C-alpha cells in the first residue's frame, strides 16, 4: 500500500468502533450474532402463521385444496424464481465487496433490489386478480360451494402470510437499495462489509420463508 493511501484512509478501510467494543472484530461478532438472534425471532413470527395454517389445513383438507387452486401458480412460480435469483445475486455482491470490486457489487445489489421490487409488483397483480374474483375476505368475498368457509379461511391466511412476507420484502428492497448507494459512494470495502453481510443474511431469510410459503399456498391442490 502506498504512503498516500496510508495517510488518507482509502474507501471502505476505516471502521469506526463504538465505545462499548474493544476492537472491530468484537464489534463485528456482536453485530452478526445480533442479526442471527433477530432472524430467530422472525422465524417465530412466521411460525405462528404457519402453525395456524397447519391446524386449519388438517381441519379442512378438501377446502384448502380447492382454495389453493384459486391461486395463480404461474405468478407464484415466477415470484419464487425471482426471489431465489435475487438471493444468489446478493451473495455474489457480498463476495465482490470483499474482493474490493465495487462496480460489480453495485450492479449486483441494484439487480437484487429490482428483483425484489418486481416480486412486489407481481404480488400486486395477484392481489388485483383475486379482488376481481371476489376472493378477499373482509372486503369482497363472494364464493359458493361446499367448502366456502374453508376457502375463506385459506384466503385469510394467504393474505396474512403473503402480506407479512411482502412487508419484509419491501423493507429488504429499501435497505438493499440504500446500501447500493453507499457502496457506490465507497463506504464499504474489504475491511468493512458487516452491514452488507447482515443485509444479505436478512434477504436470505426472506427468501427461505418464501420457499416454505410457495408450496403451502400454491401447490396444495394441484396434484390431483
Amino acid at each position, binding site marked *: 500500500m502506498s504512503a498516500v493511501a496510508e495517510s488518507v484512509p482509502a474507501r471502505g478501510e476505516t471502521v469506526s468502533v*463504538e*465505545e*462499548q*467494543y474493544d476492537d472491530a472484530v*468484537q464489534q463485528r*461478532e*456482536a453485530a452478526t*450474532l*445480533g442479526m442471527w*438472534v*433477530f432472524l*430467530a*425471532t*422472525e422465524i*417465530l*413470527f412466521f*411460525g*405462528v*402463521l404457519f*402453525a*395456524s395454517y397447519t*391446524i*386449519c389445513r388438517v*381441519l*379442512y383438507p378438501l377446502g384448502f385444496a380447492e382454495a389453493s387452486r384459486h391461486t395463480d401458480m404461474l405468478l407464484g412460480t415466477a415470484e419464487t424464481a425471482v426471489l431465489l435469483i435475487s438471493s444468489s445475486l446478493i451473495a455474489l455482491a457480498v463476495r465482490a465487496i470483499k474482493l474490493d470490486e465495487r462496480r460489480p457489487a453495485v450492479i449486483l445489489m441494484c439487480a437484487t433490489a429490482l428483483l425484489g421490487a418486481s416480486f412486489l409488483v407481481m404480488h400486486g397483480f395477484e392481489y388485483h386478480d383475486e379482488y376481481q374474483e371476489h376472493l378477499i*375476505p*373482509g*372486503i369482497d368475498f363472494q364464493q359458493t360451494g361446499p367448502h366456502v*368457509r*374453508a376457502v*375463506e*379461511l385459506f384466503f*385469510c*391466511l394467504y*393474505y*396474512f402470510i403473503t402480506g407479512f412476507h411482502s412487508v419484509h420484502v419491501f423493507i429488504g428492497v429499501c435497505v438493499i437499495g440504500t446500501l447500493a448507494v453507499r457502496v457506490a459512494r465507497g463506504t464499504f470495502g474489504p475491511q468493512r462489509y458487516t452491514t452488507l453481510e447482515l443485509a444479505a443474511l436478512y434477504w436470505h431469510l426472506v427468501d427461505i420463508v418464501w420457499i416454505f410459503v410457495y408450496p403451502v399456498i400454491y401447490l396444495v391442490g394441484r396434484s390431483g
Partner: protein
Amino acid sequence: MSATAHPELSVRSFLARDYGLLDWLTTRDHKRIAILYALGITFFFFLGGVAATLIRFNLVEPQGAIMSAETYNKTFTFHGVVMVWFFLIPSIPATLGNFLLPLMIGARDVAFPRLNLASWYLYIGGGLFTIAALLAGGVDTGWTFYTPFSTMFSNSNVFLVVIGVFITGFSSIFTGLNFIVTVHSLRTRGMHWFRLPLFVWGIYATSLVMVLATPVLAMTLALIGLERGLGVGVFDPALGGDPLLFQHLFWFYSHPAVYIMILPAMGVASEIITCFVRRRIFGYRFMTYSMLAIAVIGFLVWGHHMFVAGQSVYASTLFSLLSFIVAVPSAIKVFNWTATLRKGDISFEAPMLYALGFVGLFMLGGLTGLILAAPALDIPLTDTYFVIAHFHYVMVGGSVMAYLGGIHYWWPKITGWLYPEGWARFAAILMFFGFNLTFFPQYLLGYEGMPRRYFSYLPEFQLLNILSSAGASILAVGYLMPALYLLWSLRYGRAAGNNPWDARGLEWQTSSPPPKENFLSPPVVREPYAYHEAAP
C-alpha cells in the same frame, strides 16, 4: 438529585453532568436507561396497585362494595394487563438487568446502546397508549384476551389494548436480543461462562425466553386485532376458525413469560444470599444448568393451562408430566439456596430479609403449582382463587420480593447513598406479613370453590375475603414505604462508599455511582462469590 454534593462522587459519575431532561431522554448509557425504566415501572406498578386495591375493596362485601359488575371486570383486566406486561415482565431485566449486566461482566455498555434506548421508548409508548385505552372505555376480557369473547362479543377497547401490548412486546424482544449479544461478546478478559454471577445467568436465560416467546404473542395479538378490525381470522368459530388455537398460541408465550418473571428473581436471590451468608453459592454449576433447564422446559408446559379447554387426554397427560419435570430444576435451586444458608453466618440486612422471603414464598407458590399440574386436582381447582393465590405467591411473593430486595441491595451502587436500614427491615417484614395475609386466605377460598373473576360471592366466603382485603391494605402500606424512604435517602442518606456490603461481584469494584464508562481501571476477575477470600 444533588449528586455533586456527595463527597465521593467524582464528576465522572454517570449521574453527574448533563442533568437536562433532553440529556436523559437521549442517553445511551445503560445505567441511565435502567433508571428511566425504573421510573416507568414504578409508575405502572402503582397504577396496577390502585386497581388491585379497588378489587380488594370491592370484595369486602359479597355483593360488591363499590363498583358495578362491568366496572369490576374492567378493573381486574386493568390490573392484570398493567402488572403483567408493564411491571413484571420488564421489572428485574430492564431495570436491574440493564444497570448491572454490563457492570457484572466488566463491559462498558450493552452491545447495542441505541437499540436499548429505543426499547425504552417502545415500552413507555406502548404502556401509555395501553393505559389511555384502558382508562378511556376499558377492556373486560381479562388479561388473557380469550377468543371468541375478545374478538366477537366484547364491546370494549380490545383492539387498542392489543396494539399497546403488541408495541411493548418489541421492547421485550429487543432487550432480550441486546442482553444475549452482550453476554456473548462483551465479557471482559478472564470472565468465562462459569465465572458469570448467577444474576447474569438468570438474565441470560430470561433473554432467551423473551426472544423466542414474545414474537408468538405479538403475532397472536396482531391476529386478534385483524379479527376484530376486519372481521377475518383464524380464531372465529363462525368462520370455521379454532378458538382453542388462540389459547395454545397465547400460553405458548404466557407460560414461558412466568419464567421471564421468575428467572431474574432467582438470580437476584442468589446474589443477595451469598453476600449475607459470606459464602460461595452451593452447587454453582447446578444453578446455571437448572436456570437453562427451566428456560427450555418452560416452553413445553403451556398445555397445563388448558386441562379443561377440551384438549385430548393424552396431551393433558404429557403436559402434566412436563410440568412436574420443570419443577425439578426449580427445586434444585431452592435446595441450593438452603444448602448455602446451612450453618452459615447469616446477617439479616434488609436485602437478605427480602431474599429469604422470596425463597419461602416462591417455594409455597411452587408447591401449589405441583397441585395444579396434576389434572385430577387441577380440574376442580380451575379458575378458582386457588390459582390466583398460586401465581400471586410466585409473581408477587417471588418476583416482587426479589425485585425489591435487588433494589435495596444495589441502591447504594446505583445512587451512592444508603437507605435507612431500620425502616427497610420494617418494610420488608411488613410486606411479608401483609402478603401472606392477603393471599393465604385465597388458597382456602379457592379450595372451598370460590371462582376467580366473579363480581359477587357466597356470604360464607366473606370472612376470608375480609382477611384478604385487610392483608392487602397492609401490603399497600408496605409498598409505599420504600418509595418514601428511598427518595428520602437521596437527600438525607449516608454516603454508601464503593462496597457497603463487602460483596464480591465486579460491580462493587467500581465507584458508587459508577463512572459513565463503568470501570476506570480493568476489574479483577476471579471465581464468582469468592467470599472466602479478601475483596480485591
